[in-house]
Structure formats: C-alpha cells, structure tokens
C-alpha cells in the first residue's frame, strides 16, 4: 500500500533521477534508496514486528523517509548479470560516459570466475584479476550497481525500453555495514554454501566470499529465524529488518544479457559416475574451490570423505557434454583446459600425486593452450584416451574407474583417491523463463539464440537486446570478455545521440605547495573492530605529538557520513593540508577518503592511509599493548610520509576523434562498421587492392556452409559506402608517431602519401598459412595443395573429379618450432571433406588428424553430422609418426600413416592430398610492432595486455587488436572480437579527453645521464631518450615505479612514492620519537 500522496511506478510525473539528484556518494551506489512498503511480503512483515520492539521506531522510519527517492531510474543501458562479461560490458559503456544499470541476482557481482582458483593458460590468479574489476565497477560514477536484484519484465523497443526489476532486501544498510563480520559468529542458522558448491556451510547472514562487492552482508530471509542476534552485536547498527524489497522501473535504450552459465549436475549420471553416491566423486568446480586459497580448505586439496590428502586424482572429461542423449550435444569448450589446469596445479602443489585425465579429444584450441597442455604432460599429468563406462567405490573410499583402453581394446580399472567430473557448461535452468521476460529466443540446447552465429553472434533475437558471455554458449574468460566489449559496442547504437552523464562539479583545489605540512589524523575505532583490540584514543593522543601534526582525534566510524563531514570541516577550520585516516584499509576505503579531500578542496594525493585494522587490530587481536604500539608506529610512518606528500596533477589531453584500423579483412571491416554505429570515424588501411582478407580466397564456411563471397561481398560494400569510414586499399603504413589520443600516421596510398591523425588504433592484420614447401610432398606434385588452395580451386570450379582424397591436419603444427594449434583447421578439413564427398559420392575421403578440435557450440554437432552421415574416414596419427606423402615417377601420390587407435599402418593412394597448414601472424607484424610499440609472441601473434581480462588491449594505451592477428579464429569469434575492439577503441574517443594518471614518473634533467636503463625497464614504453635525457610521456606512464627502482642515480622518481617518501617511512618505522 502506498503512503498517501505517493505515486506508483509509471505514474511518476517528474521522475527524480537519483543518480544526479541525491547526496549519495557515488561508490555507495549499490542499493537504490529505500522505498515504501507497497511490495512488502509476508515474511518481512513478521520479521519486522519481531525485530522492532517499538523503541527506536519513529527515528528509524524518519531516517529512511529522508533517504527515500523516486523508484524510477533513467539510464542508458541495462545489463543483466554481473559476471566477468556483465562487468566488462558495464565498464565499457560507463567509460564512454553513458549510464549503466547493472544487476545481479546474487548478493555480489563476480559470477563464476571468482570461484576459480587460477585460470588457464596463464595460471593467473582468478580473484586477483577479477577483484580490481569488481571494485572498479562499484566505484564507477556512471554505473549503478544493484545486487540481489532480478528482472521482471522488459517492454518497449530499441532506444526506449522499460524494465521492471525487483530488488530483494538484504536487511542490512549498505551505508552502515563496515564488513566487520561481527554478525556472522552469532547467527545460529547454518546453511549449505552455494558459493562453495556445497563443500561448506555459511550462516543466514553472510557474504559470499571475502572480496565480495559490495561488501555488505546479506540476511537470507528464507533461512533467517529472526532472532535478532546479529542486530544486537552490530555496532554501526547496520542490520535493519525494516529495509524493504522493492520494484524499480528502469528506463534504458538498450539491454545486454550476460547471465552466464550453470553447470551440469552429474546427479543424472549418478549410475555411471557415482556423483552424489560416493563422497569422493566431485565436480571440477568443487575442485576449483578446493584449490582456492580462500576456499573451504584454504587451498589444500582434501578428500571429502575423510579430509585426507589424495595421492591420486583422475578427471573424467565431457561429463554431460557432447552427449545427445542428455540434450547437450555441443562441446563445453573449456573443460579440457580447466582439467589440465587443475591437474597441473595439483601436481605442482604435491609432486608425488598421480594425476590422470580421461578424455576423448584434447581440445587445446586456443592461444597458448597447446603449449599449456604440453607443459602439463611434461609435468607428469597422464592423459588417457578413453571414455570410462562406470566407476565404483572401494572400502577405503577410493574410486575405481572402468574403461576400455583404446589401443589394446582391453577393459581396465584404475583406482584413485579422488575423482573429478568435468561437467558440462549448460544454459541456466531459468533461461526459458528469462527469455520469456526478455522477449528473446533460446536455441535447441537452451542457450540464448543469436541473430546469426556467423554474422551477428552478439545480437539476440530481439532488436536492442544483446548477448555477452556464456549465456549464448560456452566460452572461456577472454572470449567472454571480448564478446562483452562487443555487446557494449552494439548497445551504443541506440543511445549514442543521447547526452552523456555529467560529472559532478568539483570545488576549486587549494594550493598548498610551499606551505608547512599541517597534518590531520583521524583514528577510527571501527566500533570494536579496532578499538576492541588496541587503544585508539592513545594512538590519537600519540599522533597529536608527532611532528607536523596539527590535529588528531579518534572517531567511532571514519567512513560514516558524520565523520566524513567532520574531516571536511577540520580541513577548513584547522587549515589542514594533509590528512591521514588510520582505519581499515586503503583498498576498500582509500578512494572514499580521497574523494573527501577533493570535496574539501584538497588534492587527493595529500591523503595517506594507516592500515590499523586489517594489518593490525585484527591480526594481533590477542595482545592489546603490542597492537597499540604497532598502530602507533603505523601512524607515525604515515605522518612521516604525509609530510612529504605533494599535490599531483592529473593532466588532461584531448583525443583526435578517429580510429586507424590496420587490415581490411573480416576483423578490420567489422571493427569499422561497429565504430560507425557509434558514430566514430575510422580509416581502414589495407595493403591489398581489395577488402576481405583471407576470406576472399575461401569458397564456403563452416559450420553454416555459407558462401564466403556472400559474407564478404555485402560487407565490403557496406564498408565502402559508410559515411564514417574511409577505406585506403593498396596502402601501407610507413610511420606512426605519438601516443594515445594523438597519433599520426604516414601512409603510402596509390594516390600518394597521406598523413592521418587519429586517436586510437586497431590492429587487424590477420594471418597466413605457413609455407610447407618440401614437406608432405608439397611442391612436388600439383595433387598436393593446402586447404586455401583447395578452396580457391573449389571456388573457381576447376577441380576435376576425385576418387581418393587424403587431408592431413596439423601440417606444420604442434611441432617444437610451431607448437600451437591452428584452431580453424579441423573445421576447415571437415567442411571440405564433406564438400568433396558430396561432389564425389563414390570417393574415399580420409582425414588424418591428431585431435578433433571442434570446440564450442555448433561445431561439435557439425562434426558428428559429417562423420555419421557423410562417411568420411578419420584416422588419428601421433606426433612421433607423422604421415608421409610420396610421389612416384608417374606422379602417383601415396600417403602412409600409422593409425594410432587401431594400430594399423595404412597406405592410401590419393589423387588429392590436402594439407591443413599451420598458420602464422602476418609478416607485416614485425614493422607494426616497432611503429606502435606493441609486442608479439610465437608465430608473430600479437600479445594482449592481459590474457584474461584485457584480451583486446595492448599494454600500450590506445592500441587494440582483433581477429586472427591475435590468434587464428573462426568467424564468430573474429566478429565478437572486432566489435569488442571497436568498443575499446571508442572509449578514449567518446570520452573526448583523457585524464592521465597522477602517480607518474618524473625526470630530473640535471641528474639524468641518459643511460636508458629506465627506457628498457618501463613496461609501457613510456620513456624516450631525447637529447641524452630520459623523457616520460605522462599519457603512457602507469606509475609502476620500475624506472625509479632501476635508475642508479635516482634521476627518475615515481611521484607519490619517491625515494624520499619511502626512506622517510623506513626511518619512521624504525625510530620511535624520543
């Protein structure tokens, strides 16, 4: 029931935009202001009555009323799902200056990625790479984060959608909760933890994991008994049974759906694999939790049955996937690699452990995957090619696996202490409902349907609604992230003409240079969290006597609104020019206090944090006096440093509004078109006379059997005719100068030399087949050709009928010199085998292969179809016995191969041998590397800034890439990447100005001798030698300080962390004031 005078959703005449209208500090945006009781549900009412014994009621209610605002939110894009995909899409849009509403149905963002321990193939720590993204999302002024929220309906159309979302109450006031965890021990209710995959239990009040964002505890009302224990111990009074769930109306122009995946519950295969029956059979995700250092076993692998360290572990692959019977005919795409990763990590942690993987085809198709797999084999991971038929439990809890040896055809048993099932990535069970709500389609497996997998992999079946990440099909993290950026680009089309979010105006900064330091110190009690374990008052009193300290006090909660205000006041009243807060941690609260300084008119770099909670009171809670002494030291160190702090300026540079795209293949063209949709101008530089890249040479394309010309022709026309795109064919780049925002290129075109200024660049230089001359009979007979050559012949229609065709896959691949997998070869060979078979029904077609790597959705199905229905013969060969091709004097071609599975030596006379050749990045990459200061790795494939979370960026700012220049790719992945790269490249341009890092390096010209050591050390190529002196480009410097640590004479210093500041902290740490 609405309060009198209150309007209901939809009736609101003058919508109040809380993002602009209220006094809420942006980083605390998680939950929109509270609403009246019109949606209160019964359990809440009961709890409410229980909890409120009348006393505080009027004030509490009054307080909530004050903070109440409209229940309509106007934004630009709605993103459903806050996994890595949703977060990436949100950041990409928000960074362009548009407003995003991001919702997640759980109480935190992060999705499945945060559950993983490490990530293949770089073994990056998963939480370490996602946590900064999560924080970035929560602090972004243009992102409104709503956790514990689900979408109820979506009406309208592109440019004008209205969504109703339902935000469940957490019963904890996000602005008061300090994340201290005091409530958890007192909660009497324990439930199984979903986050921990059932491996441990949590309380009814909980956070999912320590790094959850927002760090706000949640009462799960289904399990809460309403005892009020937590409320009694919560010092800041954050528990509020009064807080209500609410329905919010969200108005946006586009929608991105990034709801991710679920995992196949192997209960269905209980009979075969014993999951749910035997305690020591677990899923791979459970194994990830066992490996995770913040998991239930703190990273030590233990068997569920008895907590013992397993001495042997086996993985069974494709549990649920590649199975028509279960309804998941596709390949889950990541399982081979995650099993490899899990086994290798287990082996690394305990060299005595036996690890084995039962697999069908090892799909190491991605960049560095094959090398990762090779390394795991070297490290002692055993790969057994077999599909186990059943498993059973022994008395000691160990598990025996029964399987047929593919070579000997014998039935064997292997007994292991722990069995891990690599379960399929499956669509969420609620996808059907969700699809209904969103008005989009699902495919036969239950994933969301795309416009066209080969032409528009990001578009859902409803205009204006786009897909990102695993909800469209299984993917690894970088592919999810790339697709998310792509979705961000697509979502821009409908909103690009809207006005951007205006950043709040800031007070004028007070000039403090030259003033004597006047330091203010605020020592936080954090309720009992600090004060309970050390004497905060004594610390504050001590601080008062330290040099340069003009003001010091202890406060109950430093982050509470009243303290923030008092900090602002003190800065003004006392003329403070440095502020120190001694409290929890700069990681969670540093930004808040820096913002406070800015609001008080001080440069944000004049703030210093003394970490006396996470680093002191909590870890020394057993000894009050040492904890107090340490806190004093920490404050003293902070004072020493702060006296030397200097205001830093974050320079701004303007950005030339154009993108240079190198390469006019599929990737380059799709990038240009995606940019054009965002109204961003681009130049496509193509060295060949025509656009289209390798596709121009191809005949048809798997898995949809489209004609390449049908794909590329219309695309090229659209590119040529687009007003935002200028195409320069037969043109080459001669020189590139400048840096992000302000590059300039000299380009030779058929019409003479052109100089083109641009703000960012996308490298889409593609790939080529390697030269196989002299190998596999290539070059010695015109009956031996590569797949591309075959395609050309097919396209030209001049291939004579054939009777026996042999395709040799992995020609030149997976060898020591070129260890990678060419990723598209399997698909190409299967497609062409089928084509030849169709044209020559009587012919024998053999594919000699090493692994069939038809990964992901659609491809596996395509493969099964060809093998089952087209009678193409496949022969598996081993690396040690590569097929041999011989040509006799009469030009007859014979292929000899050892069949690894059946053990036979085959001799196949062939009238056509097709080599699926290894691929390599374009030769032009060598020059591009120099010009753009970008790196490339083995095979001249470009190296991304971060293999997992920055898959389209270079470490060098302002330069991005996509397509097969990075690694061979199929069309869908190329397009997703191209659109993603467009999004990345558009960010600086749509921002218009770049605010540069304040913590950068600076060179003292007098002391620098120009030895160039810093130039060599800088990972961002931010330093140049000019006239024998180092010169730092602030636009490129990221403030890591490597240069400072490397320069012998200290001529180059890292601002904010200069030698003097660090040395004063060293002294401060070691010397008491006497």
């Amino acid at each position, binding site marked *: 029931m609405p309060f009198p005078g209150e309007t209901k959703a939809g009736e609101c005449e003058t919508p109040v935009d809380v993002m602009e209208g209220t006094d809420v500090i942006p980083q605390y945006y998680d939950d929109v202001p509270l609403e009246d009781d019109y949606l209160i549900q019964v359990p809440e009412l009961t709890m409410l009555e229980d909890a409120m014994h009348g006393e505080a009621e009027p004030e509490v209610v009054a307080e909530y009323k004050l903070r109440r605002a409209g229940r309509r939110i106007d934004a630009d894009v709605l993103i459903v799902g806050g996994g890595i995909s949703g977060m990436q899409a949100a950041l990409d849009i928000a960074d362009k200056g548009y407003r995003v509403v991001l919702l997640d149905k759980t109480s935190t963002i992060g999705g499945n990625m945060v559950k993983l321990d490490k990530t293949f193939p770089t073994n990056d720590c998963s939480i370490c790479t996602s946590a900064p993204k999560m924080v970035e999302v929560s602090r972004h002024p243009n992102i409104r984060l709503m956790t514990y929220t689900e979408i109820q309906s979506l009406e309208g159309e592109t440019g004008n959608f209205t969504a109703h979302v339902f935000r469940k109450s957490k019963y904890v006031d996000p602005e008061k909760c300090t994340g201290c965890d005091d409530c958890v021990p007192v909660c009497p209710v324990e439930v199984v933890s979903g986050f921990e995959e059932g491996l441990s239990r949590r309380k009814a009040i909980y956070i999912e994991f320590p790094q959850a964002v927002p760090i706000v505890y949640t009462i799960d009302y289904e399990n809460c008994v309403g005892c009020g224990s937590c409320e009694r111990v919560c010092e800041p009074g954050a528990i509020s049974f009064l807080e209500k769930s609410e329905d919010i109306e969200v108005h946006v122009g586009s929608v991105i759906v990034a709801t991710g995946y679920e995992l196949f519950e192997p209960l269905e295969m209980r009979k075969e694999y014993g999951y749910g029956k035997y305690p020591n059979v677990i899923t791979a995700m459970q194994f990830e939790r066992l490996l995770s250092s913040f998991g239930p076993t703190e990273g030590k692998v233990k068997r569920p049955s008895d907590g013992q360290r397993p001495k042997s572990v086996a993985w069974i692959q494709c549990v649920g996937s590649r199975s028509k019977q279960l309804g998941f005919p596709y390949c889950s795409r990541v399982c081979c690699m995650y099993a490899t990763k899990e086994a290798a990590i287990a082996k690394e942690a305990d060299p005595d452990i036996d690890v084995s993987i039962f697999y069908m085809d090892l799909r190491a198709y991605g960049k560095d995957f094959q090398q990762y797999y090779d390394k795991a084999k070297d490290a002692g991971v055993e790969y057994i090619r077999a599909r186990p038929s059943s498993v059973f439990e022994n008395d000691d809890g160990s598990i025996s696996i029964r399987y047929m040896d593919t070579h000997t055809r014998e039935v064997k048993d292997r007994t292991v202490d722990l069995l891990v099932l690599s379960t399929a990535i499956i669509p969420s069970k609620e996808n059907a409902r969700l699809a209904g709500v969103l008005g989009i389609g699902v495919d036969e497996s239950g994933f969301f349907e795309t416009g066209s997998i080969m032409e528009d992999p990001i578009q859902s079946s409803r205009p204006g609604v786009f897909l990102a990440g695993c909800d469209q099909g299984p993917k690894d993290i970088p592919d999810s992230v790339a697709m998310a950026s792509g979705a961000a680009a697509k979502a821009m089309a409908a909103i690009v003409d809207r006005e951007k979010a205006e950043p709040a105006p800031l007070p004028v900064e007070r000039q403090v240079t030259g003033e004597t330091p006047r330091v203010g110190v605020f020592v936080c009690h954090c309720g009992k969290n600090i004060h309970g374990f050390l004497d905060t008052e004594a610390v504050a009193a001590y601080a008062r006597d330290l040099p340069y300290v003009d003001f010091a006090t202890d406060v109950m909660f430093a982050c509470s609104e009243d303290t923030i205000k008092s900090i602002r006041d003190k800065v003004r009243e006392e003329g403070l020019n440095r502020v120190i807060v001694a409290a929890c941690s700069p990681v969670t609260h540093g930004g808040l206090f820096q913002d406070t300084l800015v609001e008080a008119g001080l440069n944000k770099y004049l703030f210093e944090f003394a970490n006396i909670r996470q680093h002191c009171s909590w870890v020394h809670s057993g000894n009050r006096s040492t904890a107090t002494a340490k806190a004093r030291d920490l404050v003293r160190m902070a004072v020493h440093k702060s006296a030397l702090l200097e205001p830093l300026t974050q320079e701004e540079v303007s950005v030339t509004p154009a993108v240079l795209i190198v390469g006019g293949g599929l990737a380059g063209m799709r990038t240009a078109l995606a940019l054009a949709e965002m109204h961003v101008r681009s130049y496509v530089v193509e060295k060949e006379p025509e656009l289209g890249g390798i596709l121009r040479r191809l005949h048809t394309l798997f898995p949809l059997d489209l004609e390449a010309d049908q794909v590329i022709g219309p695309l090229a026309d659209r590119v040529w005719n687009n007003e935002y795109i200028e195409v320069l064919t037969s043109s080459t780049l001669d020189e590139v100068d400048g840096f992000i925002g302000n590059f300039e290129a000299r380009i030779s075109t058929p019409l003479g030399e052109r100089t083109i200024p641009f703000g960012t660049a996308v490298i889409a230089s593609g790939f080529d087949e390697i030269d196989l001359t002299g190998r596999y009979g290539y070059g010695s007979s015109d009956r031996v050709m590569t797949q591309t050559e075959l395609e050309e012949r097919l396209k030209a229609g001049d291939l004579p009928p054939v009777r026996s065709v042999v395709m040799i896959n992995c020609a030149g691949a997976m060898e020591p010199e070129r260890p990678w997998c060419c990723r598209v070869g399997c698909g190409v060979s299967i497609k062409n085998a089928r084509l030849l078979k169709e044209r020559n029904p009587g012919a024998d077609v053999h594919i000699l292969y090493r692994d069939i790597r038809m990964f992901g959705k659609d491809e596996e199905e395509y493969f099964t179809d060809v093998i089952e229905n087209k009678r193409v013969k496949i022969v598996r060969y081993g690396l040690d016995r590569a097929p041999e091709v011989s040509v006799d004097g009469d030009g007859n071609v014979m292929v000899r191969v050892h069949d690894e599975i059946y053990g036979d030596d085959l001799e196949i006379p062939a009238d056509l041998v097709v080599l699926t050749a290894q691929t390599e990045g374009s030769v032009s990459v060598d020059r591009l590397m120099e010009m753009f200061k970008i790196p490339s790795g083995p095979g001249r494939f470009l190296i991304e800034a971060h293999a997992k979370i920055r898959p389209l960026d270079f470490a060098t700012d302002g330069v991005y890439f996509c397509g097969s220049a990075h690694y061979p790719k199929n069309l869908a992945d190329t397009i997703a990447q191209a659109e993603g790269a467009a999004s990345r490249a558009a960010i600086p341009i749509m921002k218009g100005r770049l605010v540069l890092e304040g913590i950068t390096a600076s060179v003292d010209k*007098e002391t620098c001798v120009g*030895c*160039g*050591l810093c130039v060599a*050390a800088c990972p961002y190529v931010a330093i140049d030698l000019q006239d024998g002196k180092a010169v730092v480009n602030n636009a490129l410097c990221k403030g890591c300080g490597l240069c400072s640590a490397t320069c*012998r*004479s200290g*001529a180059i210093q890292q601002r904010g962390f200069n*030698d*003097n500041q660090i040395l004063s902290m060293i002294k401060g740490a070691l010397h008491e004031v006497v």
Partner: protein
Amino acid sequence: MPDASAKEAQVRDIARRWLASGEVRYVIGYAAGRGNVARAAFVRRAGDADRLIWNPTCVNNLTLFLREEMLRKLAKGEKPDPRPIGIVVKPCDSKTVVELVKEHIVDPARVRVIGLTCEGVCDPKKLVGTEVGPHAVTADTIADKCTVCRLHNPLMADEVVGDEVPETVEDDYSDVAEIEAMSPEERWAYWERQLSRCVRCYGCREVCPLCYCAECVFDREKPYRWNERTVQLPENLWYHAVRAMHLAGRCIDCGECERVCPMDIPIRKLNRYLEKKAKERYGVEAGRSAEDAPTFGSCDVDDPEEFIW
C-alpha cells in the same frame, strides 16, 4: 719487447694519420708515466703522436676519459665539435666501449677506436720497489685481471693493432670461489676487515668508466642523503654493497677500481661475484654486445627464484 714497440709504432702511425687528416679531434692514448704505470695522454696534434706509447705499463683503462668527454657539458659559447674522438684501447677496455654504447653514453659515430691485441699487462702494485722501466709480463708481474681475461682481441675497433691472439682461458672465478667456500662467519670477518679500512676517497668510483652518474647517490644531498659522510663500517658497507649492485651485470672487470684503491681493498672480488652470478642466473655478460639488453632493465619469465617463498 720488439712486439710491443712495433705495436707502439703502429699506434703512433694511426694516431698521426687520424690527426693529420683531421678526422678526429684528439686521440686519447698512453704516454710514459712516472713509475710503473702509464699515463693518459691527450694528443691533439699529429706532431705529438710520438708521445704515445704501448708497453706492459699500459694497465689503465682510458675509456673513462672518453665517457667524460661524451658527457661533458659544453662551455658557454662553445660550439659542438662533431669530429670523433680517437682512443687507444686494450681488448678489456674495448668492452667498456661496448657497454658505454649499450648504455647510450657513447655514440659510436663519435668515437674512433685503435684496438690493440693484448696478452696481459703488469700490475703496478706488483712492481712496487722494483726499478722503473718497461717490465716484462711474467707470472709474477701480470695483473690479476689479465689472468682471467677471456678477450685478447678488441671488439668494436676501427683499426686493430697486432696479430690476432688466440683466446685462451675460461674464467673459473676461483678468486670468488675462495670466498664462497668460506663459512658465513668467515665471509663476514673478511669483508668487515676489508671494508672497515675504506677511507671512502671514492677513487674506485671516480676511476670507474661505468660510474658516470651526473650525481652519484653517495653525493646526493637533496632531497635526501642516502648515505652519511661518516667513514665507519655501516656507511662503508652500504657504499660497497650499493655500488656493487649498481655495477651488477655492467662491470667489465677492467680492474681499475681495485688498482687505484689506496687501501688495497679487493673490490674486484665483489664485482666479479655479481658478474659471475649474473652470468649464471641470467646469461648476461657485460660488454659483449651493444645490442644486449641491460641486466636490470630486462627480465625473463624463467629467471630462477629459488630463494623466494
């Protein structure tokens, strides 16, 4: 030694030729010194070329003066003179030139190198008390650095003087191994004694061709004094440890620092230890090629890290 004097004549000829043609501004070479060590000569006129000498007293590394010229600030009103500087180097010294080129201090276009082949020179300290004169290089007189020198033919020379000498010994770092073999207490006792003696004249730094910082950290006053002027063990230890780190992977073992040290401190033993370690661990060698990456400006994914937890 007839060979030496023949080489000496050749050096003079080349210098004379270069000076006469005006292709070099001046030639840095050796001249007879007092006692048993040659002196640096700065020959500006073809007519003075005969001041140059070459004999086993030419132990010093003249590249120091080359980098000094390269880093010299032009005097007020002085016009930059584009002509290169000529310099006489031994093979070991030529490594310095390489290292200085690598470190962008010497522009290869601004130097012309007369490189001598060499099988060793004398250690002046081993000659103290003997008659002054051209000494023979014998097992008793040879400079320590020459006994482990692996380079007998100059790198990067414009003109080579002397016939190619076959490269001999592999350096086994036995001097370093001697110390490594000691117990930690003995090692400390050894270095404590040696470093307590240092008077911090900074001769070792001043003579080092690779200590060319415009302001050395040990002279730094502002905004912070890294090391006190105090000449006592803590400061001396700090000086030597830091300097060793600054030379790590750069020192080309010309031995100048040890030669000039008035307190006979075995500085090479410090530098050579890190040289050995840098080679063992990272495969880096100073002065090998100007194209090599600097030891501390580069890194490798597979660098060893056995002591790290």
